[in-house]
């Protein structure tokens, strides 16, 4: 079942800024990674899903409710973490969380308290005296505390130290197990590849590629890096695999093959004197750079 649907969404801010004709959907229980550099349009999409702005054309919907027309109703089941945290300054953390709880009419702070403990947050501090990381934690707790079925998270780990980032990733894993539907926007490959089922790559406001992470993890194409002790062996292998990458100065070869060819590669290498052989992992980052790298050569 599709929980979040974006159809031909366009919002033009001029100067090539904005989002242009993006279509995507997120299934129930799926974690969707929204990947792109700053200014690619990630936050714009999430803001429109929250009904803060009206799309120029196309539709966005959550739970079959239109993000603009039904902007009040959709929020009952949504937790939103903005990309730039701005909180009312003149209250303490706990006062703020209590206020949000009342405005939502949930009247249940039990999960909030659990998360306060989990993130080791001191909520008695006035928000204006809080560090960036503390504010980020408050905003995270605010997004999660009413246990919503849908989470829209815009660069959730910015401002958190590595330890807290790890904790946050574990929190998302837990929420995923509960069956939450999540959009996670980020430019950090590591957290996206750890958490997401599917990733949409956004470039200059256009969705240029969607990747199923499982395919990326279990690809049949593999790449090996080999360094030879001497030039003779290096040249011999270069003749056998002419289309691959060879670095003569280091006697290194980078050979990409499908799994069926592994035996012949090993037997070819068996007569060579090697320094090392290692697999080069296909990471999301390589994949991403393939799309972004192209642009620079043009």
């Amino acid at each position, binding site marked *: 079942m599709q929980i979040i649907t974006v159809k031909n969404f366009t919002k033009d801010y001029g100067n090539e800024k904005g989002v242009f004709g993006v279509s995507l959907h997120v299934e129930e229980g799926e974690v969707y990674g929204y990947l792109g550099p700053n200014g690619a349009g990630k936050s714009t999409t999430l*803001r429109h899903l*929250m009904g*803060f*702005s*009206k799309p120029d054309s196309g539709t966005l919907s959550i739970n079959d409710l239109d993000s603009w027309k039904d*902007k*009040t*109703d959709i*929020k*009952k089941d*949504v937790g*939103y973490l*903005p990309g*730039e*945290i*701005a*909180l*009312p*300054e*003149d*209250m303490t953390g706990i006062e*703020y969380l209590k*206020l*949000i709880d*009342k*405005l*939502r*009419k949930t009247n249940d702070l039990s999960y909030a308290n659990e998360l306060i403990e989990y993130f080791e947050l001191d909520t008695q501090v006035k928000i204006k005296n809080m560090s960036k990381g503390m504010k980020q934690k408050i*905003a995270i707790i*605010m*997004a999660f505390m009413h246990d919503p079925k849908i989470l829209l998270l815009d660069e959730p780990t910015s401002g958190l130290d590595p330890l807290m980032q790890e904790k946050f990733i574990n929190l998302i894993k837990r929420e995923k197990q509960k069956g939450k539907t999540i959009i996670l926007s980020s430019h950090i490959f590591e957290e996206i590849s750890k958490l997401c089922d599917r990733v949409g790559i956004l470039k200059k406001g256009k969705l240029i590629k969607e990747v199923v992470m499982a395919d990326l993890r279990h690809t049949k194409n593999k790449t090996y890096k080999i360094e030879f002790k001497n030039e003779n062996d290096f040249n011999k292998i270069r003749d056998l695999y002419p289309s691959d990458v060879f670095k003569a100065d280091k006697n290194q070869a980078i050979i990409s093959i499908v799994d069926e060819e592994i035996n012949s590669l090993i037997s070819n290498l068996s007569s060579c004197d090697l320094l090392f052989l290692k697999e080069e992992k296909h990471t999301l980052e390589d994949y991403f750079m393939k799309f972004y790298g192209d642009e620079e050569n043009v």
Partner: protein
Amino acid sequence: MFSIRYFSYLVKSNFKFLAAFTLVLCAFLIVMCNVFTPETISGISNTTKGTIASNILTGNGTLIGFMSNSFYALMAIIFPMVYSIVVANRMIAEPVDRGSMASFLSTPMSRHKLTITSALYLILSLMVMWGVATIVGITAANAFQPDALDVDTFLMLNLGVFLYHFAISSISFCSSCIFNTSKNSLLIGGGLPLMFFVISLFIKLSDSLEFLEYFTLNTLFNPSNIVNNSGYSQEFMIMALIGIILYIIGIIWFERKDLPL
């Protein structure tokens, strides 16, 4: 339509403004009742005889006449005006500008619930301000100059000045709803009321500038007309109408606009 929770949040975070401005108004009223007895009034009118200042300062020689020409021409206009400008901006444009509006609008509280609650807070706070000022004024007058104050006229003056500030605050509130930055909200929502005030001062200084009365809202609140009981109900109604219309425009505008959150 209205959120009691959000209202109590607004009360808490804006109470200090209301308290400070109300205190200043009350202090002026008390000083006025205390110091400006009929003897001092005639003293001033003697020293300034024949000048414009005489006309501006003293009026018809009664306490209420004196108040209408000084307090209700200056302090009662400018101080609550600054209050309305500051608080109206704090209600909508400032949290939108800073981004903290996102936390309220990501709850299932609708935009119009938020704006209506904010508008009511601003209007009610002005009512409280003038309610307190009225009570303090009457009490102070009774304490310092028993029977010197014409209470009916005093009440009418305060109703008038409240309606004036209702209209002024509607300009600031509407501007706060329309603009996404504090800067622009203050430029219009603060600039227009202040311009009205400055124009009204010019008009007092020279008869040749009287045509300017069509360019300022202050024309609608004329304390001497109220003191002389010479037809002011129409003006009161127009001020109320301006206020209602601009508040509604602000609320509808905010409902429909793109928010940069």
